[in-house]
């Protein structure tokens, strides 16, 4: 949508204060430009007029708060985003994870995914016939996200992009076998995600599934400032098993952060890092 409403810095800070004091969600160290834009989007979407309207609604309605938490998180927007990343996962990383160790490896989608990362991962595992050989955990901020994902209705904006991404991931595969079409809506096969564990998080990602071997955290820290990025990277580094993998966005980096010495760069183009033993 086109956004024409603009919210000032003072109003932005007031919304952040309400979210913290009245709702218990800490957005203080989110990146200001994109947060401000998301607030403008929400104010426009719900015809709230201005920041005061938004603040009043946040204070008065628990249901709206959940909707807000859903809308404040940018959608992942693409299935199989960056196809080479998924190929490396399929050809190198997943086979290694299931080969080593006796218990099922844990894979944690730690970004606030709107479902696209989760379904892409699940399709990949199904094609490897390994869907039952791993435990998948997925972070969510709102109940609304869980409903969206478990209904299979991801409402992908651009089917051509998704189809093209999938073909770059697996040129022999048949993308259309993973969804059905109902009145022009795409509904994904929910059996793909039936065993997924959702972790209801706060904005600071205080919970973790314990000893994951792969953390997918692509394009999430771009919505944080430097301070929060480093705090959350530290949490991820602390729970990830030695030798495990952390994937961030292709234009993100752990260089010049406080966790850079805990990782080696496994694949530079796809920004996949491997946890050291320290």
């Amino acid at each position, binding site marked *: 949508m*086109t956004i024409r409403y603009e919210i000032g810095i003072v109003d932005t800070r007031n919304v952040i204060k309400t979210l913290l004091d009245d709702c218990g969600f800490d957005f203080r160290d989110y*990146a*200001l*430009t*994109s947060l401000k*834009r*998301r607030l403008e989007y929400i104010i426009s979407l719900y015809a709230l007029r201005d920041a005061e309207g938004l603040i009043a609604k946040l204070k008065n309605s628990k249901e709206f708060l959940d909707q807000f938490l859903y809308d404040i998180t*940018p*959608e*992942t*927007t693409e299935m199989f*985003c*960056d*196809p080479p990343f998924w190929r490396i996962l399929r050809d190198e990383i997943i086979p290694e994870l299931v080969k080593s160790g006796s218990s099922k490896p844990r894979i944690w989608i730690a970004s606030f995914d709107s479902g696209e990362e989760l379904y892409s991962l699940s399709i990949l595992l199904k094609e490897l016939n390994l869907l039952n050989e791993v435990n998948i955990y997925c972070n969510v901020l709102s109940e609304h996200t869980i409903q969206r994902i478990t209904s299979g209705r991801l409402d992908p*904006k651009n089917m051509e*992009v998704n189809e*093209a*991404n999938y073909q*770059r991931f697996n040129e022999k595969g048949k993308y259309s076998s993973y969804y059905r079409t109902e009145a022009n809506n795409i509904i994904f096969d929910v059996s793909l995600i039936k065993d997924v564990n959702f972790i209801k998080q706060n904005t600071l990602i205080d919970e973790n599934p314990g000893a994951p071997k792969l953390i997918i955290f692509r*394009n999430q*820290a*771009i*919505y944080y400032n*430097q301070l929060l*990025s480093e705090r959350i990277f530290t949490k991820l580094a602390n729970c990830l098993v030695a030798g495990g993998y952390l994937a961030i*966005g*292709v*234009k*993100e*980096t752990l260089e010049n952060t406080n966790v850079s010495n805990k990782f080696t760069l496994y694949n530079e*183009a796809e920004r996949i890092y491997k946890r050291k033993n320290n």
Partner: protein
Amino acid sequence: MYKAVIIGGSAGSFQVITRILHALPPNYPLPVLLCLHRLKHVRSGFVEALSIKSGIQIIEPNDKEQIKPGKAYLAPANYHMYVELGNKIALSTEEPVNHSRPSIDLSFITAAQVYREKLVGIILSGANRDGAYGLKKIKDLGGLAIVQNPDECQVRTMTEASLKMTPVDFVFNTNEIIKFLQNIKV
């Protein structure tokens, strides 16, 4: 007087951009932000192609990269590129705007909010309307708005949309854009 230059372009802008970058010296006193429409799934090759003749270093920045004078920052494929307070790049994967990611409007708006009257915005040849609103924001916040002469553009849609929306400061041919940028006061 100025702190940054931002340039937006789409279809037909590659040669113009190449000529502009070629004319800038390595010690150019300002950062140059480039938001050019590009194929979303082709991540490499563009910086290399632009760099061949460029006088200044061209970077496809990572998120949170510090913006420095004498360098050009090219919006990466499939990301929006914002300017964040503290003179840093911020990237975003929010949905496309004007069917575009990167969107020129978003780069221009966020740069205008940070640099205000100390920003020069330039719209080049292009086939859609992305950038027109962004240029208006630059002008509204006191910055300088330049549009490439539509008669010189391979595709005139973008420049004409910008001229319709904003009383710009200058309509320049490529040579004039280059001369202006070479003599800019900082």
